[in-house]
């Protein structure tokens, strides 16, 4: 059964300033519990803003260290989940449920990538 990494992309600059609503957090909690109980959700976490992030690059034999926020990027990864699903149709269904707990004024993208095994 394939495992997928879903990277949740949000636009930091246009995300609701007040952050996620209480109701959203509750719906999200219930969904994550359901997914855990279904044996599907293996791991998940939200990430702190890119303002607290750092990029370390190795290029031409040299390091470059850049502290966030990464304003040049429109979308940043705000969280991730590792989900084990039977196939692509199933991961799509779970992903849709995950996105649909957000209110309509959110723009959230889940990028789904299958994890290479073996």
């Amino acid at each position, binding site marked *: 059964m394939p495992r997928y990494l879903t990277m949740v992309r949000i636009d930091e600059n246009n995300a609701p300033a007040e952050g996620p609503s209480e109701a959203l957090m509750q719906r999200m909690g219930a969904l994550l519990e359901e997914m855990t109980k*279904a*044996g599907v959700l293996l791991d998940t976490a939200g990430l702190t803003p890119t303002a607290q992030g750092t990029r370390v690059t190795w290029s031409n034999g040299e390091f470059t260290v850049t502290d966030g926020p990464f304003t040049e990027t429109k979308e940043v990864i705000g969280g991730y989940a590792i989900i084990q699903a039977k196939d692509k149709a*199933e991961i799509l269904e779970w992903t849709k449920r995950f996105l649909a707990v957000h209110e309509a004024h959110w723009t959230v993208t889940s990028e789904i990538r299958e994890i290479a*095994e073996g």
Partner: protein
Amino acid sequence: MTEARSAVEAVFRIESARIIAATARIVRDVGIAEEIAQDALLAALEQWPESGVPDRPGAWLMVTAKRRAIDLVRRKETYARKLAEVGRTLEDVPPPEPADPDRIDDDLLRLIFTSCHPVLSTQARIALTLRLLGGLGTEEIARAFLATETTVAQRVVRAKRTLGRAGVPFEVPYGPDRAARLDSVLEVIYLIFNEGYAATTGDDLLRPALCQDALRLARVLAGLMEKEPEVHGLVALLELQASRAAARTGPDGAPVLLADQNRSRWDRLLIRRGFAALARANEAGGAGPYALQAAIAACHAHAVTYEATDWTVIATLYRRLAALVPSPVVELNRAVAVSMAEGPAAGLVLVDALAAGPELKAYHLLPSVRGDLLERLGRAQEARAEFVRAAELTRNEQERTLLLARADRVSR
């Protein structure tokens, strides 16, 4: 069109166990419940491509199935009334209610306990559990067990009929019955996992899909029975064993022994999940056979190299396991652990005691282990004889070659 179809099927796969479980509570028959759930799926396949997928597809399927179940009970009720004309009160049938997580949990548990009921043969329990709870089609089950689809379909049909005839109530057992019935549930999941992990038939050493199905079932059960230490023990054991899957076979498909496995290929996520499940088992007061085996697996997972393995702890755990579920195979494993912790002489004492008994007379690993200990003690001639004997007993060609090579090496 095909996209709508695969969406319907995905929703059904996610929801089917819950739908069957909720329907079975109404009709009191898992076989009929499954048929009703299938009907609801067909209805969705007909309607959704035209009307569009509803906002809450799972709820749609659930309500549709429940309505059909209630209709069926009502029809039966009317029929029974007309037929018998006696005032037999049937249970009140609940109307479709909004999803209640507790109710769904209870229904699912009932379904698991019914599918794993001891009135069924082991094979029947496995097939029914995979079908009703794992959402596998007969074709998938047949492929996993290298059986024909007809055989599996018959097995499932017969299992449902047996449950009906035996009047098995759709319930979670309580009281003294509960522990024994839970053992049966855990055993079924463990057997499914092992069938995938140490494939008894066929060419592949490992059938990963079956392991994953078992693991998912175990995780579901853990979510439903949070206070049962052995459930978490089983989850921990399966997560930890599954974490080694990629390292268990070489590029040529030949098995790689624990001592020789490339530990960087062990799956860190599964190891972490295994540790967490083991911690939950311990918190719940776990000291049963699954929790103990998980603890042994955890010792291996903790060791960065084979040489770094804490054999003293493993030997202790095997002693507790042997006390709990006495078995010569567990005893043999304990002897190996003792020999690693205290030296070959201490292990040999235990192995000799086993060799004196009749149980492992035909088990090639007994002379194989004994040969190993004798070799380490420098008793080359005796070691050689044991390796030769082990080679005669094994039915695996690769193992025979390996054992004869050892016999040859030790006598030189």
